[in-house]
Each structure stands twice: as C-alpha cells, then as structure tokens.
C-alpha cells in the first residue's frame, strides 16, 4: 500500500516536469524563426497560407499559442516530419521498435558484462584481471562512441567482412518482405515464428551497434559494481557466511552479488539517458533505421518538428525510466524510506 502511494505521488510529480519540458520545447519551436515555415511550401497560394496560420493559430498571442500547441501534443498532432515524409507521431511509431531493440540489447549486454567484470575485478583485486578491467573501463568512459563505431565498422565489416554493414537484416529479407511484424523487435519476432536463420542474421546485424552503444555503460557499471562489491565483501554477514563454511562461489555469486547490485541498478537507470543520446550517433553510423538515425537526418535537413518531437519523446521515456528505477530501488532495498 505504501508502495502504491509512493508511485502515485511520484507520478503526480511528473506533471510539473513534463509541463516544464513542454515549455522548453515549445519555446524552442518559437525561437527557431517562423513556426509556420514547416507547413508552408512555395506552391501554396496566400489563401492557403492564411489557412495554415488559422489552423495552427500562429497569429494569436504566445500563451494562447502554447495552449493550442499543448493540446496538439496531447491529441498526438506533433507536426509534419519532412525527413520521414510522415506525421511526426507516425514516424515515431515507425522508427521506435528499432531503437527499442538496440537500446534493450545494449542495456542487457552492459548489465551482464559490467556485472561480471565488476565482480571479477573486486574478487581478484589488484591482480592482472583487475588492472586490465580498470584500464578498459577508464577507456570506456573517455572514448568517443561515434569514433569507436567508425573504427569497428571499418575493420570488422568493411575491411574483413565479419559483420554485415548497416540495417537490421540482410537485404534479401527486405526484398522478400518476409519480416514478421508482431512486436516490431526482429530478434523476438523471428523467434516467435521459429525462423532461426533470420534470428541469427538479426544477431549478426545488431552485434556491432549494440556493442558500441553499450561500451560506455559497461565501463560505468563495472566501476560501480566493483566498488559496491568491495564494500559488501567487508560486511559482517559475508564473514558469517564464510565462518559457516560456505564455499566462496556461493558467497560471491549469491550472497554478496545481490546486495552489491542495488547501487548498480540506479546507475543502469541513469545511463539509459546516455544510451538514448548515444543511439543518435551509433544509429547514424551503422545506418540502423531507428529514431536516432531519423533525428540525426532531421538535424541535417533542418527539420525542427522531428528533432523537437524526438526530444519530447525521449524526455517522457527518460522520466518514466527514472521512476521505474526509483521504485525498483525501493523494492530491492527495504531500508529505503518511501517519502
């Protein structure tokens, strides 16, 4: 019951944040020059232009404009995306699954690799494994992700053709139009229809982008996991477990890991924003047909509607993910007081 109260309270707190974000995005649309420009082309008659002005209320005072704009946002009229030649909301639904798949896979990769490396590094403290892991994680946080992506793409897919170049599947699947659309996530869909060949093809295509995207997060997770693991290993209950004669494996992987993972979860949640930002760079390099590539293309095309729509969407996702992380945190660590 207390948990439910907490969630409701946190959801209420989201409202001012979302209003604030919408204010920022709205003022950006109005600073960028004539907001009507996106709806007008040179084939229109003055009468049609007047209609556009009336339809979107560009003549009225700024506050009224905001109210109309916000209404539009709530009614899912996010404007026209020049880049995708679709309404922004439709473009988002079209591109979203690809980005979701990429971020989820990189998140999973980051969590598993990061936790494993962090634990290993803490257990083998000051041994070669630890040193190597720490150097790698240091490089991970200081590496420009788009540069890593370029280099990996050059060597692994262009020079040596180990991995395919671009897109989510081989061209043949697009030509045959044999891609199922159940959840939109190709890896899951291909498993659902039982097409293993397509699944492995998807894995091959997603591997490089996901690896690049997760590199920074792996570094952060490793670092946090190592520190919290070191802390936990010194606690009394671990000594008790050792005194009871439990074998070291059980102690580390069962007793210590669970508690050490609590701070890691927060970090993973927070790094989700970094992943979404990184997706813009990674997707445009690997021509991954997702939101990031679309927004990077929109930037080049000076297509404000798309860029701002993308930002608004990401803000909503990010805020919700943070909420989920906080709730999970409270659930996993009973000592956290819900206020």
């Amino acid at each position, binding site marked *: 019951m207390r948990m439910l109260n907490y969630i409701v309270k946190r959801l209420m707190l989201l409202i*001012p944040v979302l209003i604030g974000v919408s204010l920022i995005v709205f003022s950006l*649309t109005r600073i960028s020059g004539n907001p009507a420009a996106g709806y007008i082309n040179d084939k229109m008659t003055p009468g049609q232009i007047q209609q556009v002005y009336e339809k979107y209320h560009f003549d009225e005072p700024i506050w009224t404009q905001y109210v109309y704009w916000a209404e539009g946002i709530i009614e899912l009229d996010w404007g026209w995306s020049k880049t995708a030649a679709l309404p922004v909301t439709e473009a988002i639904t079209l591109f979203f699954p690809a980005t979701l798949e990429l971020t989820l896979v990189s998140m999973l990769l980051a969590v598993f690799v990061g936790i494993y490396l962090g634990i290993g590094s803490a257990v083998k*403290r000051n041994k070669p494994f630890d040193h190597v892991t*720490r150097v790698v994680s240091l490089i991970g946080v200081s590496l420009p992700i788009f540069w890593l992506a370029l280099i990996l793409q050059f060597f692994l897919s262009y020079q040596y053709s180990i991995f395919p170049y671009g897109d989510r599947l081989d061209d043949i699947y697009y030509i045959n139009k044999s891609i199922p659309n159940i959840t939109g996530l190709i890896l899951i869909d291909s498993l659902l229809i039982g097409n293993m060949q397509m699944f492995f093809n998807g894995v091959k295509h997603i591997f490089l982008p996901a690896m690049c995207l997760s590199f920074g997060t792996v570094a952060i997770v490793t670092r946090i996991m190592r520190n919290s693991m070191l802390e936990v290993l010194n606690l009394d209950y671990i000594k008790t477990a050792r005194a009871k004669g439990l074998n070291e494996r059980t102690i580390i992987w069962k007793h210590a890991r669970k508690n050490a993972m609590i701070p890691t979860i927060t970090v993973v949640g927070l790094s989700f924003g970094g992943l979404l*930002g990184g997706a813009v760079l990674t997707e445009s390099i690997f021509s991954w047909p997702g939101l990031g590539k679309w927004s990077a293309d929109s*930037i080049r095309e000076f297509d404000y509607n798309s860029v*701002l729509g993308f930002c608004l969407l990401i803000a909503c996702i990010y805020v919700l993910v943070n909420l989920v992380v906080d709730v999970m945190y409270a659930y996993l660590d009973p000592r956290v007081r819900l206020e």
Partner: protein
Amino acid sequence: MTDDNPKKDIPNADKKAIPEAKVPERKAKSNIFNIEGLTKEIEPRIRELKSSFLLFRENITAMIGLVLVLFIVIVAVCAPLICPPGLGDPMDMPKDIKPPKKPGSDGHILGTGHHGADMLYGIVWGARTSITTSLFVVLTGLLIGLVVGAIAGYYGGKVDNLMMRITDIFLSLPALILAMAIASILERNLQNMMLALIIVWWPSYARLIRAQVMSVKENTSVEAARAIGVKKSSILFKHIIPNSISPLIVSATMDIGSVVLVAAGLSYIGFGVNSGYAEWGRMISDGKDYFMLPVTYYGTSYVAWWVAVFPGIAILTFAMSFSLLGDALRDILDPRLRR
C-alpha cells in the same frame, strides 16, 4: 582508480607530512595586520597542501593524469611554435586541396586529411579549441550552478523548491539530446554549441552544490559564526561555499573531459564548426568518408584511415587525462576519504 590501497599510502604520508594530528584552534575572526595570527591560521592549510601533494606524487594514475593534462595544455599554448599558422585565421587548417597523403610524406608527420589539410596542425590547434570550449562551458556552468545551488541550499523553502524544480526539468533530458534540441534551432557555430552545452551542464552543478551547502550549513563552525553575528551573506560566501566546493572541483575536472566528448558528438552530427576548422569532432566527421572510399593518388590506391583515427586518439587522450586527474583529486581533496 586510486581508492585501492589505503594501507600502503597513508601511514607513509602520515609519518612524513602530518606529525601531529591535533587540530589547531581557529580564531573566529582573522586579522590581516596580525602576521603571527595569520601564519598560525594558514599553517594547517599549508600542511594540508603539503600532505596532499605528497599523496598525489605517490599515486601513479594521478601523476599520469597530471602529466597528460600538462602535456595537452603545453601543446595548446605552444601551438604557434609547433605548427606555425599561415596568413589567414590560424584555426583554419592549411590545405592543398589534394587527396589525403600518408603519414610521414612531404613533411606531414601525421599525413594529410580532408582537402589535404595537415593532420598534425589540426590536432595541435584542435587542442586549443577543446581546452577553450570545455573550460568556458565548465566554468560558466559552474558559476551559474554555484550561485543557484548556494542560494537554494542556504535559503531553503520556496526559493529552494522553485529552483530545484527548474533543475529537475533540465535534468529530465539526456545531455546530448537537450544540447541537440537547443543547438538545432540556433545558427550552427562554435559559440552556439557552447551555449547549448552550458544550458545542459549547469543544473547538475546546482544540484551538487545545493546538497553540499545543505550539509555544511549544519556544521558547528557555521553555527558559531552565526552566534557571533556574522552577516548572512558573508557566512554563505566565506564559511559555507569554501567548505563545500571540493566535490565541485572534482566533478568539474572530470566534466572537462565529458564536455569535449559531447561537443565532439555534436560536431560529428553537424553542429558546431564548419569543415576545415581545427576541431577534433569535425575532423573525424570529415575523415569518416575516407574509410569507405579508397583514394587514388599518383596511381596508387589506399584507404586513408588516419584521417579519422588520429583526432579520435586525441579526444580519447584528452578525456582520459582529465578523468584520471579528477579521480585523483577526489581522493586527495576529501580528507575523510584518505585518513
């Protein structure tokens, strides 16, 4: 990277630099004309500084970070000596409008890049761009954050609530994406990119300093100052802020590296400077096409990998050195951590 062997470092440092652990009594009010009193007041600080320096020297990673940072600064300062500029704007790389030449040919140590621009010149002068950009962004962000955070933390109540809600809104967008949104509606140049980065960066400093101020505010020293009737503003500026600034210094040092990473990302997707300007992100962006298209020059065909690789190494080194230095400063500036 340095939190590892307290047992090895600290007893040594204690013996050499801190013979007595007694905390000398501090006068409530210093008198500048009283030299004896002044030296007495400064003495513990000097001792603190000395022991800090000693700890710093014993810490290998800290020294590596410091040496790298110094190296970058020296390269940036001595840029006109290392690579004498031509007649025009020194930030524009001199070029011969020819395909990229291999490293070592025709006196180009690192080869030439896009339009035949000298890579070494770009990297050396790019160090200037990176240092000025990141310092400007971090210092301005720090100043805004310091004022906002200190006022919010010290006065509390409604002011605090309002200011923290505002920072909440800014923090609810991932850094790269917010910067993208802001930069997308502005004219694309270096100044506007810095402006976008400042808008993105200040809220985290405000949060940090607020938390610090709120905890330092409860210290007995502050209470004593209040008891003897020191003005509110001078309590804030003379007693609270100096005592709460050290985590800010650490975070700012690390952020110098992160700002360069985000700036490089922004300039890669097309914000920031024009092609030909000595800026690392832009140089990678210019060089990426040469990965895919082998150039033919005087009958030989080759892939000009160096055009994108060298600027990336420069960014990596820059970010890594500041990250190392920041890590070391954290261990050293926080006396509670190290004793």
